[in-house]
């Protein structure tokens, strides 16, 4: 940041429109603002701070309103206070305007309606200006409020850095050199990683793995059952082959031939009857699937009756169409061609009929609905008749199957009763039949279990797809959590190294500058930062020198430290110093003024005449780019900024 211009209006003792341009030439980078005590140096310094940081820099904004302006304004009249600061930063030009509106109270004090408002315009080369959307954010990014005191500082407090036990040095290093940025980055990244971890904990139920295991189990069971079913098919086929062989033998035997042939015939009929029975049952099931017709039959009938009754009462049209009635009325002729008179009985009748008819579209819908309802009722009737007929057929087939099975059993008993070989064969045959029956029952049971398993596997597939999506989310979050944690760990791992590096550089530059600025430099052998970041000065004998430092030497030490901070931070920020040399003896002023302009890009010194004279003035003369005198008008109670021509 480089300051370009400041403009103050009704700000403390700056009642008029006061302007001042800062020196910006790199070779002449010093602006000197002279003023006696109370002339307005601190007000000007406050104006810079307030414009950029508002109540953070000066909490009591009512005290900033010009008293002279309030005195001129009548009771309840508005007074507008503003500070406009033009500055450049990284090649861009900005105009910051902080504006405060107040009213004069009855006691003459300022009454604020609301806090001040900051507006920043980004000014283009052609003169176009665009407002910066978040002005406070911009200032925070350029020169954060918490480091401003290291660049815009009060000379009365300059030796705070060198006071024994001061935490200012540590605080300055932490803030200006961005170590706190590192700490916050690391802490916040760690919290983000923890947040990811917590979310992962909620997701990581192992659900997907459980489902996979379950799926494997189900598929394994199904595979075993399918193998058993295949095995049973083979057993059944084998037993049936044995039965067929026995049947052939029984036919060959005289004593059982007739019975065997009868049994085969009955068996053929039984197979046929069973087939018909199953087929009929299947057809009934298909018809019942359309059973909504039967269920709605009653309601549909009632609806159709309701429409018929309405039509019979003439509340909705029957077959008489509105258009047809309208045509007769227009033509004044009956359908038979006989004319009738207007308002005659025929005409009146047709008008009454027209009133009862409905517009064409509704009429069509009513007629169509009635037709559909009638169609539903007819279909339901047909369906009911079909199902009844099939049920009767099934009953007959069940009886036939039962009868045939009984007959076969009777024939089998007779065959089994035959002595010797046929009887033994029949008993063997019976065993095989029982085997087939048992195998078939087991096969049916397996079939049902396989169906259950297939349904479970299908359901599981759906669950696994859902869980897989969660798994992907889990993996996605894991990657992010690791990245956040790695970044946090990386910052933590370099923090000490970086802090040590910076600390070393600050020490080095402070030592160098202190040696340049202090007038008896040969009496000091070094400057270092202690474990608690306290500034330590050692004398020529290597002993601690701080207790012996004069107030001026402590101020020089502070200046050396500030200069070192500016060098190490590489921030392009102006150094604005209010009354910086008040405590310095002439010899220190001389050495400080000889080096101070080289410590920063831009230097603004608000000084009394006593602070900058003789050799000190000569030292800084060649760096001065702009110079002003603050003149206080006692009659008006206001200050005027007067440029000193150069």
């Amino acid at each position, binding site marked *: 940041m480089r300051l370009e211009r400041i403009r103050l209006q009704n700000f403390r003792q700056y009642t008029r429109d006061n302007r001042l341009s800062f020196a910006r030439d790199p070779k002449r980078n010093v602006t000197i603002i002279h003023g006696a005590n109370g002339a307005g140096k601190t007000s000007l310094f406050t104006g810079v701070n307030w414009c950029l940081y508002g109540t953070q820099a000066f909490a009591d904004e009512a005290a900033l309103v010009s008293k002279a302006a309030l005195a001129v304004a009548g009771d309840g009249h508005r007074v507008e206070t503003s500070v406009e600061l033009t500055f450049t930063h990284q090649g861009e030009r900005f105009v910051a305007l902080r504006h405060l509106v107040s009213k004069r109270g009855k006691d003459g004090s300022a009454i604020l309606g609301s806090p001040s408002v900051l507006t920043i315009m980004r000014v283009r080369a052609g003169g176009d200006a665009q407002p910066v959307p978040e002005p406070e*954010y911009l200032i*925070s*990014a350029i020169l*954060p*409020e*918490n480091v401003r005191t290291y660049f815009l500082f009060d000379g009365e407090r300059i030796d705070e850095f060198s006071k024994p036990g001061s935490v200012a040095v540590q605080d300055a290093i932490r*803030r200006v*050199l*961005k170590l*706190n*940025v*590192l700490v*916050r*980055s690391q802490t*916040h*990244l760690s*919290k*983000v990683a923890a*947040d990811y971890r917590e979310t992962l904990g909620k997701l990581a139920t192992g659900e997907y793995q459980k489902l996979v295991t379950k799926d494997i189990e189900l598929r394994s069971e199904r595979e075993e059952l399918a193998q058993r079913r295949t095995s049973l098919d083979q057993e059944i086929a084998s037993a049936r082959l044995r039965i067929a062989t026995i049947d052939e033998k029984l036919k060959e035997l005289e004593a059982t031939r007739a019975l065997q042939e009868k049994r085969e015939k009955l068996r053929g009929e039984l197979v046929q009857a069973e087939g018909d029975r199953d087929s009929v049952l299947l057809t009934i099931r298909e018809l019942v699937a359309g059973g909504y017709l039967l269920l709605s039959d009653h309601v549909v009938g009632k609806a159709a009756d309701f429409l018929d009754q309405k039509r019979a009462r003439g509340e909705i049209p029957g077959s008489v169409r509105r258009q047809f009635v309208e045509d007769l009325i227009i033509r004044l002729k009956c359908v038979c061609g006989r004319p009738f008179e207007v308002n005659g009985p025929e005409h009146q009748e047709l008008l009454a009929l027209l009133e009862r008819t409905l517009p064409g579209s509704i009429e069509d819908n009513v007629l169509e609905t009635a037709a559909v309802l009638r169609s539903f009722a007819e279909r339901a009737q047909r369906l009911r008749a079909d199902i009844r007929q099939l049920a009767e057929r099934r009953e007959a087939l069940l009886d036939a199957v039962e009868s045939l099975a009984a007959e076969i059993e009777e024939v089998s008993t007779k065959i089994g009763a035959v002595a010797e070989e046929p009887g033994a064969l029949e008993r063997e045959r019976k065993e095989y039949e029982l085997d087939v029956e048992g195998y078939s029952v087991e096969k049916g049971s397996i079939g049902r279990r396989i169906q259950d398993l297939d349904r479970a596997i299908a359901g599981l597939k759906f669950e696994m797809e859902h869980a897989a999506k969660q798994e992907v989310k889990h993996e996605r979050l894991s*990657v*992010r959590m690791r*990245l*956040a944690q*790695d*970044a946090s760990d*990386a*910052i933590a791992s*370099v923090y000490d*190294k*970086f802090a040590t590096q910076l600390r070393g550089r600050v020490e080095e530059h402070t030592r160098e500058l202190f040696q340049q600025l202090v007038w008896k430099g040969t009496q000091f052998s070094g400057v270092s930062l202690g474990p608690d970041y306290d500034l330590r000065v050692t004398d020529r004998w290597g002993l601690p020198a701080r207790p012996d430092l004069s107030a001026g030497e402590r101020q020089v030490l502070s200046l050396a430290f500030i200069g070192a901070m500016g060098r190490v*931070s*590489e*921030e392009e920020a102006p150094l604005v110093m209010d009354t910086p040399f008040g405590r310095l003896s002439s010899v220190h002023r001389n050495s400080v003024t000889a080096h101070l302009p080289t410590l920063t890009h831009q230097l603004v010194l608000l000084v009394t005449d006593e602070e900058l004279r003789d050799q000190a003035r000569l030292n800084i003369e060649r760096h001065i780019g702009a110079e002003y005198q603050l003149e206080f008008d006692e009659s008006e109670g206001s200050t005027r900024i007067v440029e000193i021509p150069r």
Partner: protein
Amino acid sequence: MLTDKIMDLFTDKSEPVRKVIAEVLRFEQAHITEKMPRYMEEFRRIIDRAVDDAT
């Protein structure tokens, strides 16, 4: 910027880690005056971008 110099200390880290650190440092530097910046959502976005760029 000083934060750019800090990045020299992360040359042994992977590209996504470096990207996350660089953006996080920029964010924190811009929000250093805020006591509780809304970093959580912003950091998640930064991390998302780093992952997306890497894949």
